[in-house]
């Protein structure tokens, strides 16, 4: 990797630009006045209290969290099944199935939103949490499948065989060997699934209804008619939650999968 001046300058620029929006949002959330401004003219918890005391906000938050949790868990389970099934599938079938799973990455979200809306109306599920969940499952699928499939491909084929010859049945091999070795991929899948679903605006906007709406859609709607700092306060809470989640995952399984898959090879042999 060349580390000449242009590369370094770019890296430094990125390091400044990445947190820049966060500084504005967090700063503005503490404003005592009813206007989004930065730097804030003072310090207050006013907008945090407003968020916590408004049932509509809390409901939207709860709906988003529930959908995100369900999306993360369900897509991870589905991706696990798909990756295991496709591992030994004929390469043609495998390629076709992978294209289908990764397809949501290729289409504009607005187009997907209209498409989902059409189907959900037919199924009489538009404007329900289930409808949003179904859409989110599709949107999260590529992000769940990729890390799990990559993790699976990294497991040496002889490991399950070694477990078998040592006496393990197929179930024992899966629980004691395959699953533990898939841990980084599964963690990444859960994390991606949760964050992507929790953050999703465009598609959800088509699918929300008078009874059920998600937090990002509510924020977006609120921004359209007033720019008060409650959205900054909510965003700050989300930033905190996301950071907490990432840290937790890192603690539990290590986020090697994001950074470096060859850590083992680099560790000095003792």
């Amino acid at each position, binding site marked *: 990797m060349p580390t000449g001046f242009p590369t370094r300058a770019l890296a430094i620029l990125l390091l400044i630009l990445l947190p820049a929006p966060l500084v504005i949002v967090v700063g503005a959330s503490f404003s005592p006045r009813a206007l989004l401004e930065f730097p804030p003219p003072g310090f207050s918890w006013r907008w945090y209290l407003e968020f916590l005391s408004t049932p509509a906000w809390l409901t939207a938050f709860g709906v988003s969290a529930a959908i995100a949790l369900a999306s993360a868990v369900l897509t991870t389970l589905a991706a696990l099944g798909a990756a295991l099934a496709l591992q030994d599938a004929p390469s043609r079938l495998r390629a076709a199935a992978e294209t289908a799973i990764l397809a949501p990455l290729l289409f504009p979200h607005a187009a997907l939103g209209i498409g989902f809306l059409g189907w959900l109306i037919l199924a009489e599920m538009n404007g329900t949490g289930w409808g949003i969940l179904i859409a989110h499952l599709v949107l999260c699928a590529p992000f769940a499948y990729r890390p799990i499939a990559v993790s699976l491909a990294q497991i040496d084929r002889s490991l399950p065989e070694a477990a*078998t010859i040592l006496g393990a049945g197929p179930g024992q091999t899966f629980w004691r060997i395959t699953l533990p*070795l898939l841990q980084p991929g599964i963690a990444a899948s859960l994390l991606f699934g949760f964050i992507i679903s929790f953050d999703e605006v465009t598609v959800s906007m088509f699918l929300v209804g008078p009874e059920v709406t998600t937090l990002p859609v509510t924020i977006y709607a609120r921004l359209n008619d007033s720019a008060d700092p409650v959205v900054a306060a909510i965003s700050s809470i989300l930033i905190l939650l996301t950071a907490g989640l990432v840290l937790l995952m890192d603690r539990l399984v290590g986020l090697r999968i994001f950074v470096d898959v060859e850590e083992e090879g680099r560790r000095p042999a003792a």
Partner: protein
Amino acid sequence: MLPTPTSGRLLLDTVSRSFGALKAVDGVSLDIAPGEFVAFLGPSGCGKTTLLRIIAGFERADAGSLILDGRPLTGLPPNKRDVGLVFQNLALFPHLTVTENISFGLELRRESAPEIARKVEEAIALVALQGLERRRIQQLSGGQKQRVALARALVLHPSVLLLDEPLSALDLKLRRQLQQELKTLQRRTGATFVFVTHDQEEALSMADRVAVFNQGRLEQFGTPQALYGQPASRFVAEFVGDANIRDAAQLAPFGITLPPETLLVIRPEDCAIGAAADAAPVRREGTVDAIDFIGPHARLRLILDGLAEPWLALCSGSAAAGLEVGARSVLGFDPAGAATLKAGA
């Protein structure tokens, strides 16, 4: 006291396996005795791994049968065969420690915790890994990993332990050392060992009997002495050590008459050079074409007068002293001591 091997008799009867048109294993029959150390020897791609995987149960045989201690193996899954396997790449579990790798099979058998601990400790002592119990696999050296793989398989006391080129990734010195250790381990455990290698020296020095394979077929199954002294085919004669293989026409100038369709296998070390050749029943003069001093020995290639095919000879360094490329010398041998082959075999 060494355990007397009572189990581990493995019978293979015309076992075959094809991949499409390729006959990877072609009608192999073997009778391996309890506690025997057998090497499968052959060039790359001759079907050694495939046969080993058939014995382990990971690959099915298209035809033929396998019987272990009177029990047919056909249809039994690998985890029910009482067969151990040390993989070529070892296949140690990277998420487990040394102890956890070794105790894996015992835990599956639901043995009691103290029993498992005792057996693991025993296995660790057997392969001299004391002190490394809690290490993770990637914190071990190549030789240490090798031993964990051995301990993991041996702790279950399989009647037959299959080893697929377990030493091929190691450097020569470590390899020699582990060859010795493996041999000792095999005697101590009394298990039948089937050891795959394409290194003939390794096979001949370690095994009680060696099975030589070529293109899926068993060429010969015998003791190292038998393979060397009475090769069953030209392939074996050439694969196991060096050989001068000559037909009747090539031997006529020596005054030797061979029955038709017969070849004579004259080993280089049975060829005498220079003054030492005077005592040999047949001899012929020639020119040194190449000479190689290897330790105390000298390996020579000679072009004998009137003969196209060069001859290989191995003699002591002192016998070859003074010889150089282009020098004249004499090569002699005793045809009575040479093995014969059927031409075309």
